[in-house]
């Protein structure tokens, strides 16, 4: 397999084969990130498309320091953030769906039965603001202060959004686990 440095070099020279190779190698992982940040497939496709265009445009600035995947992921997350900001006024925090109360304690519950696709579907069902805060905090590791600056909310709002997001996720995870258990037990 060609070395990533050679692929980047080829992309910078405008080599179509290397551009496609880079896309084929990383698009599946980055598309999963896009899905994680978006509520519908169309939005995810747009984020991936814009994200990859930015990746190709900015390859010249990549200094081969640190993980290339991490660098690409940061660009895709920033693109998702831009999308979120541009739709900011369209989003509203919906009421939490009427989901049955969890029948398990989240501190002790074993979630190993859940597949990645189930987790992705659960996270995508979150209201956009909650989803964005949860992704930035729990997955990307940003602080509330940073998240506040990124999506123009206060630190306190970020904390409360995260708390609400976790609560919804726990309910939905527990619900899914319950459904799965029932299905297994027959």
């Amino acid at each position, binding site marked *: 397999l060609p070395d990533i440095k050679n692929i980047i070099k080829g992309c910078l020279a*405008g080599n*179509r084969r290397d*551009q*496609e190779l880079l*896309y084929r190698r990383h*698009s*599946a*992982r980055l*598309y*999963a990130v896009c*899905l*994680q940040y978006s509520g519908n497939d169309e939005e995810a*496709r747009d984020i*991936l*498309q814009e994200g*990859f*265009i*930015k990746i*190709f*445009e*900015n390859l*010249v*600035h990549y*200094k081969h320091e640190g993980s290339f995947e991490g660098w690409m992921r940061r*660009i895709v997350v*920033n*693109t998702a*953030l*831009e999308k979120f*900001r*541009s739709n*900011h*006024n369209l989003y509203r925090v919906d009421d939490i769906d009427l989901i049955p109360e969890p029948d398990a*304690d*989240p*501190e002790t*519950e074993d*979630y190993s039965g*859940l597949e*990645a*696709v189930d*987790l*992705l579907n659960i*996270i995508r069902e979150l209201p956009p603001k909650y989803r964005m805060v*949860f992704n930035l*905090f*729990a*997955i990307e590791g940003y602080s509330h202060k940073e998240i506040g*600056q*990124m*999506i*123009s*909310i*206060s630190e306190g*709002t970020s904390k409360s959004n995260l708390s609400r997001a*976790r609560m919804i*996720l*726990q309910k939905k*995870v527990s619900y899914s686990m319950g459904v799965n258990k029932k299905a297994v037990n027959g």
Partner: protein
Amino acid sequence: MADGNVNIDLLFRNGLKDYEVLPPPEVWNNILPAVRKKQKPFVFLRAAALIAVLLSLSILGYRWSREIIIQMQNPELASNEESTQYRNNAGSPGTAVKSPAVKQRASKTKNMPAAQLYSAAIPVLDGPSISPEENFNPGNDLLKSGKLFDMQDYSAVIQKSIFQAVNTKNKVKDDLKEIPYKELKEKTNKWSITALASPTYYMGRDRSVSDVADKMGISEKSMVSYSGGVSFAYYLTKKLSIQSGLYYSSVGNQIDGISSFSGFSPYDFTKGDHNFEVFTTNGIIYTENSDVFLLDRSGDRVITKYNNDVFDPAKANLSYVNNTLYQNFSYLEMPVFLRYKLIDKIIDFNIIGGVSYNILVNNSVNAHVDGNNYYVGKTAGLNSILVSSSLGMGLEYSLTNKISLNLEPTFKYYLSPFNMMEGTKTHPYSFGIFSGLSFKF
């Protein structure tokens, strides 16, 4: 409950860590044209530079190969010229060669080089004597005198013609000696004035200064700019000249992801100079237009007290202008270049290098709306005087003795940083293909 939060965070973080989903094929189909379109200007400039280099090398190669061929053919050409001269003399009415033998001999010697012709004539010199007076007297007609017949006639005619040719050559030499030296010396033009213009592409910046600059730079693009002006050159020697003049050049930078809105002035109760600051790789933009509201779409580059927590442009019904800001910097450039002529032919080939002093004359930041500029403010912290270094090659095609057409691909690197902001001292470099006309006097 805190552990539960960590647990749920870890569940999603680890669960989605390596998860992959194949995107629909149409995504790549949409990416490819966009990437190719963006690469086009740069590719075009690179191709233009490559063509210029190849063209100049081809011309040089052609000229050199022609010179070599001419040099190889030169001895024969020189002989032919002499034999032609000889034939003309031999065939002149004054000599009137009519003998068949002479004709035959003449036809044999017609295409013979002069040296051979001369040696062919030498044995005849042993025949009946001809006085030097007769030979050098143009009025002396040997045929009329009846002293010589047949071969002797012929040899005399040949001999006379050779002496006439020698005489003519000597006469030309003597004439040349009489012409004053000043008139012989080629008159050279000491000065030239040149008007040049070029689209200029700022290929990139020195990104290595800091991560801050790198992060900001991801959303920034250089724009194709233009520069042009007039320069004077003084020829120190035939090949070396010093050049200076006055150029106007503009540098543009496009900043994406900063949304601007108009109609903010009714809500502006600030006493300070500016409401918004925008961090860019070229310095900090300070808004000067109190009507503008700025919002960063992709990060934290906009610093303001009117952040989204306290002011929502949509709720205030502000008019959206654009999502991109354009920084424009214009400079008056005073170059001091040395130009060395490597090839001095119909198409001259020069190497040009030197430094320029660039004085900042315009600094503005705008957003575009319906093809018009919407003024936003200025970039702070810019160096008012920049020093740049240039290196280029010049092709000069002489249309006449005094007017020539110039083509100069030039690379420029800014030795001084654009701004003095700590961590973002950018040193842009540019490439331009200057073209224009020059007049020598």
